[in-house]
């Protein structure tokens, strides 16, 4: 097990190194000079040159890459060109919006998907099942930004139960914070819940057809008992895999929802960073997300190995 873990850790480190080189190269290649963006149409060439010098944009590509890499290893992600504060501070602030939002949406989508998937599988072929399948198909097809705007029109503009967007900060209290994240979380959760419910249904249907379920029924368990005690547990494996994937997606993929609700999250930070050519912010942020995804994969690998001893030998 230890050897397996070490080899996975080594491949994790190598992946990160390759990712950092690719990210740096791609982002530095984009046309557009951060200094001339910041100084605008009337700037004199000397002022632009002075700013480039201050931002450290004049060194060679390799020396800047190594400087960036070395900084990250020692926990220094650099200073944002435009905001002029440390990138780590910006990211930490934004993480406190994006992370709770992703968790909130994940909890909502799980809470919706589990019972819905269970009912559909239990009543397979019934009108209820067809109704649920149709509704989840619609849930996947509806673009979440459009659904988000619909939510805003109904609950913010007409009913005035919620703000149309924005985030008061956790300093304002837990409830106002959660309230501000509710509409965005619902908008994010709907398509995820639809996918999850369908996965849940097909996984359950598959396990319900297994021999051990027949055995369980034969020894006298009711259909309900067989489902909750045996089928549900075995159906969890594909469902948990999907939930894991959805979490990385929710963390990084909320760019559009964050714009619709003007939430100060990571997605909007990346978006702003790209348009303003705040290269250091974009590079560090993308690196961080890559790290998060690779780390989740690494943990999932370890978990698989813990569950399934055969994997340890093949590694």
């Amino acid at each position, binding site marked *: 097990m230890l050897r397996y873990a070490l080899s996975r850790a080594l491949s994790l480190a190598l992946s990160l190194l390759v990712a950092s080189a690719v990210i740096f190269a791609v982002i530095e290649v*984009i*046309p*557009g*000079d*951060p200094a*001339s*963006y*910041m*100084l*605008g*149409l*009337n*700037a*004199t060439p*000397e*002022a632009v040159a*002075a*700013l480039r*010098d*201050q931002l450290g944009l004049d060194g060679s590509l390799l020396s800047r890459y190594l400087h960036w890499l070395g900084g990250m290893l020692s926990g220094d992600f650099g200073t944002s060109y*435009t*905001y*002029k*504060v440390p990138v780590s501070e*910006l990211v930490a*602030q*934004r993480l406190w919006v994006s992370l709770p939002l992703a968790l909130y949406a994940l909890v909502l989508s799980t809470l919706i998907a589990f019972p819905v998937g269970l009912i559909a599988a239990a009543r397979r072929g019934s009108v209820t099942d067809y109704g649920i399948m149709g509704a989840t198909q619609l849930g996947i097809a509806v673009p979440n930004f459009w659904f988000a*705007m619909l939510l*805003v*029109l109904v609950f*913010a*503009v007409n009913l*005035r139960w919620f*703000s*149309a*967007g*924005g*985030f008061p*900060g956790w300093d304002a209290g837990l409830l106002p914070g959660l309230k501000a994240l509710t509409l965005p979380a619902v908008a994010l959760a709907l398509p995820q819940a639809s996918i999850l419910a369908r996965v849940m249904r097909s996984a359950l249907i598959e396990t319900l057809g297994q021999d051990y379920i027949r055995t369980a029924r034969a020894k006298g368990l009711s259909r309900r008992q067989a489902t909750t005690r045996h089928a549900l547990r075995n159906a969890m494996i594909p469902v948990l895999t999907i939930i894991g994937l959805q979490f990385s997606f929710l963390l990084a993929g909320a760019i559009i929802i964050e*714009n*619709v*609700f*003007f*939430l*100060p*999250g990571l997605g*909007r*930070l990346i978006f*702003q960073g790209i*348009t*303003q*050519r*705040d290269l250091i912010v974009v590079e560090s942020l993308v690196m961080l997300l890559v790290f998060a995804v690779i780390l989740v994969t690494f943990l999932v690998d370890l978990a698989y190995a813990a569950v399934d001893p055969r994997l340890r030998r093949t590694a």
Partner: protein
Amino acid sequence: MKQLTLAAVLALTANAAVAQQDTITLGMVLEPPNLDPTGGAAAAIDEVVYANIFEGLTRFGPDGSVRPALARSWEVSDDGTVYTFHLNEGVTFHDGTTMDAEDVVFSLDRARAEDSTNAQKALFAGIASVEAVDPLTVKVTLAEPNGNFPFNMAWGDAVIVAPESIETDATSPVGTGPFTFVEWVKGDHVTIARNDAYWGDAPALAQATFKFISDPNAAFAAMMAGDVDAFPNFPAPETLSQFEADPRFTVIVGSTEGETILAMNNKQPPLDDIRVREAIAHAINRQEIIDGAMFGFGTPIGTHFAPHNPDYIDLTGLSAYDPDASKALIAEVGGVGPLRLMLPPPTYARRGGEIIAAQLRAVGIETEITNLEWAQWLEQVFKGKDFDLTIVSHTEPADINIYARPDYYFQYDNRYFRMVIDELAVTSDPAARRALNHVAETIIAKDYVNGYLFQLAKTGVANAKIRGLWENAPTQANDLTGVSWAE
């Protein structure tokens, strides 16, 4: 006793209901990258700090006039090269330090220094020396007379900062203005509060919050839901009629300093031929662009000058919509090949560009449209001059002098025009300045340097009870000093 308490509670709540509202939330499309107006060009910086947190020697009024600010008065020497500014007494920065002549010397010297990153460094280029005569008197000596100097000092880029706080002004600005900085939740809002130690008249508002909402639909929803009290530059003009019909809101339409032009690369064949540029000018139907791209908001212009400026002359006749004249000119030069039309992100450019492409096709000029991000546009068009046509709004006030820079991106090179601008720079008599401005406006209109489209309108939405917001935008600012709520 119980009844008494109830009465007291009722009285209290009644009082609270009657009490004047003294906080405001303003919507802004773009978040400022930082809050130091002397170190960046972003208009969003000035939209938060100008006249609210930072003040200069002079300032712009709502009508664009230059007014006293930190300098209560000033004199010019007879030869026009020495300006003596008399500062207001008892002015302090928000950190409690005194604002005196030394701070003015520091600010101006810093802006014109060799390593200065001031986005409008040219404003300070003519300064030969700045000295503090006494704590309340500053003498600025210019290399040449400059009638525009008090105007230059009114820009947001020329505000007075303190050496004690300049290092942190980008994130936590310290100025002399009627509001102090409270907090900046990055990506969400900036809050400022009334400065009780302000040297001038105290503002009516106790607190103001600038909320950053870039998505037009989100801006609409935020106004309708009452999350935002006013949106001075509202990004969804197509919904303005809805706000007009709603008694809760007022729609504020004013003018800006933004001359929106179809810029042409004057050194790039075939645009180096004045007949081609004239043909393009006559192919453009301005009203169609204003109606189609700007929902009817905007004033046609015939030269690079703001129509609300008293020195403006209407030269739209020189480039009137005349497709036949256009076709005749194109036939004369033997046809014009496809031109590259580069469009930056704003709506006026993207929507306007498509309309212009159709108008040019009608007279036989094909265009190839490329959409660019701002950073790409700056690199390729503005710096690299690798374009034929582009659309951009020049939002700096009184900026006709950009035509005197032969290396500017549209590469107009006319020695006679430069002489007029040089003369203008050293003239302070209003009548003489007006005559020179008229000459300058006419030269560039007759040379068909660019296609002059329209003056960008400022369209805002506000709660109907708010008083005192600027209608026009002589500079990009949200001056809150005169803003209050009606009963």
